[in-house]
């Protein structure tokens, strides 16, 4: 047993770090540092830089553009990405639809979609949740009726984040209304330009437009764009949710935020001295750092166990990562807000959205801290709320 990185792993980390230092455009880096949102063109620019390096899709099977890195290397890569700080390539593309197609797609689908997904010629969004199907995802009612070599899709999707940027959508629809809940669901790929697709923005509590509702009115989707068999879409979705969970701990992002909070706390004055010199503040930070270190090791332990079982199935214990990871992301966002103090009060959505790059004052960074705290509340809700994760753990790990 040895929890320290090997010399090779350290060399790999240094290589990744050096690449980010040299290749990450300074304007994008600055935005990430300030906690601003990254625009679509910026995201595309960054992903194409990674793509050119061969690093846009590390987790994919090597024959489809993966790097063949070990799980530990992938972990290091993600952490360095967050610490750079650089935008994380769109998860819908890289962590969700890509791996799903590799596991369930036809050769033709793989050949067509995978390169375009990796380059982000196709920006994908996720059409799962509905007004009546949130945590109870299998209650979804959007219907698909077969008409020759097409499905006719009708219904409403909710929380379709980045749908306003997206070229394609991976969609869960009900093809057999008679079957038991999970059994009549089919997985489809939908071109967002299809007639009958209407996307309406939802402005969230951070004042930002990230997510949407999407109405589907007689949308024709070719049967060729079905992933897996008809009525077997739940299997694909479950596979995907497992992938989503293991990526969601985001230890690197929380580490970045804590590091940033410490740096900023050295500049912020409180009672005539830097905030970082306040023992209570330092102890709060230290507590968070301990939890983060523990989560990092827990994540690496689960990676090692999954590798040992080698059955490709996500460990139900990955729910621990999701729960603890989301709590720490939230705590780290709160920490930044607390460092900002009254400087966080001004409402400036254009700055948060990255439409304005800087102001004359030197505490711009504070303007994003409250919105990012609000936005961070979503991480314990998406991808199966933390309460759903507790249900999963109670059932599968504790046998309750």
């Amino acid at each position, binding site marked *: 047993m040895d*929890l320290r990185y090997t010399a090779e792993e350290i060399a790999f980390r240094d290589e990744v770090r050096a690449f980010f230092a040299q290749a990450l455009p300074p304007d994008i880096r600055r935005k990430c540092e300030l906690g601003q949102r990254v625009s679509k063109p910026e995201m595309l620019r960054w992903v194409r830089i990674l793509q050119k390096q061969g690093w846009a899709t590390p987790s994919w099977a090597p024959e489809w553009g993966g790097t063949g890195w070990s799980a530990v290397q992938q972990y290091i890569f993600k952490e360095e990405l967050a610490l750079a700080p650089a935008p994380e390539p769109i998860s819908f593309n890289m962590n969700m639809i890509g791996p799903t197609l590799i596991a369930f797609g036809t050769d033709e689908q793989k050949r067509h979609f995978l390169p375009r997904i990796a380059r982000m010629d196709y920006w994908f969004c996720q059409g799962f949740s509905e007004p009546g199907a949130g945590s109870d995802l299998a209650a979804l009612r959007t219907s698909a009726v077969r008409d020759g070599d097409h499905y006719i899709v009708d219904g409403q999707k909710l929380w379709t984040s980045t749908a306003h940027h997206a070229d394609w959508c991976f969609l869960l629809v009900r093809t057999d209304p008679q079957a038991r809940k999970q059994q009549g669901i089919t997985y489809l790929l939908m071109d967002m330009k299809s007639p009958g697709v209407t996307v309406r923005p939802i402005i969230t509590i951070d004042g930002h437009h990230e997510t949407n509702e999407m109405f589907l009115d007689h949308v024709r989707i070719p049967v060729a764009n079905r992933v897996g068999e008809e009525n077997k879409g739940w299997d694909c979705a479950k596979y995907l949710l497992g992938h989503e969970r293991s990526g969601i701990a985001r230890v690197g992002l929380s580490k970045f935020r804590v590091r940033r909070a410490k740096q900023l706390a050295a500049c912020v004055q409180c009672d005539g001295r830097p905030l970082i010199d306040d023992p209570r503040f330092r102890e709060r930070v230290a507590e968070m750092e301990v939890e983060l270190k523990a989560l990092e*090791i827990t994540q690496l332990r689960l990676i090692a166990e999954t590798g040992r079982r080698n059955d490709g199935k996500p460990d139900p214990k990955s729910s621990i990562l999701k729960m603890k990871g989301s709590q720490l992301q939230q705590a780290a966002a709160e920490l930044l807000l607390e460092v900002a103090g009254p400087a966080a009060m001004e409402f400036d959505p254009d700055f948060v959205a990255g439409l304005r790059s800087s102001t004359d004052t030197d505490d711009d960074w504070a303007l994003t801290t409250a919105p990012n705290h609000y936005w961070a509340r979503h991480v314990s809700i998406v991808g199966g709320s933390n309460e759903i994760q507790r249900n999963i753990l109670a059932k599968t790990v504790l046998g309750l």
Partner: protein
Amino acid sequence: MDFHLTDEQRMLQDSVQRLLAEQCSFEQRLAYRNEPRGYSRALWRQFAEMGLLALPFDEADGGLGGGPVDVLIVMQALGRALALEPYLATVVLAGGLLRDAGSAAQRQALVPAIAAGEMTLAFAHAEAQSRYGAADVTTCARAEGDGWVLDGQKRCVTAGDTADRLLLSARVSGGSRDREGVSLFVVDANADGISRRGYRIQDNTRAADIRFERVRVGHDALLGTAGEAVPYIERAVDVATAALCAEAVGVMERLHELTVEYIKVRKQFGVAIGSFQALQHRAVDMLVALEQARSMALYAAMMCTEPCAAERSRSISAAKIQIGRSARFVGQEAIQLHGGIGMTEECQAGHYFRRLTMIELQCGDTAHHLRSLSEAGGLIAA
């Protein structure tokens, strides 16, 4: 990065767990508590036969040359069984000091007896005023003739009432909290001038307050160079802290199992209370706290051999903070989920809770380590 146990380590784990399952059940342990030493000498001899008492000592001295992961395996098993035997005191803490600070002659005089189960040790260090300060020592040692004279009082020495030898910290120079001027001595616990008041502590293990009055020892009782013991003490306490973290994981693991088993069988309103979501979620939160603690216990074990002392101490402080927080949470929730029965002496849960509470207080409590870690700048470089 590698999380695998070697074949030998797996065998060690299996054999210790089997021994404790057979010889240290809850009922057996209650009986051992009433033996003259407050633990089972027979079980201690079996530890010796299995090589557990020789584990972390060098082969040249009669040990097995085991590392921190081997100790972690043993401590975790002892924690699961709530073993009363003074393994941490004898083998890890005082044994660690002997191994690191003792001369070859001192090691070879003591290690074979320890390994054979014939001699136990205790580290007499803490004093009434010292709380957790490694250098806070007022007990004094004066050179006299060809040896030393020791005077002072030590407080709550784990396993100190039954130890055959005491490793003792005493000041040869400097002020009461100076890092320079502290020495280590090894003394016969029954030497003239030593008086011990032994008592049971909250978790049914034992400790002693020990008074040294003009205790005369030879020059060969000194470990290492006079006045330079603090770095050795810090290292030994760090290593013991890591071992304690592993023990805590064993305690929490078993307590969590007991709790989940209980809510599966305890019926109210005509159903098992484990079918209630409010209770399921609490049991899951205990699991999360346990897994976080398990990760940090591994981290602590790994950092025992870190060459940079500051880095080692910082990391092990981080581990003890996590253990302290998880232990408090898991212990309290276990009692709550057991309900009234969890408040009783006959229920195992309470015994585990009490041990966890004592672990929080040993080798530096959460507040102590939080202060140390934050003063050292935390874990993430700004």
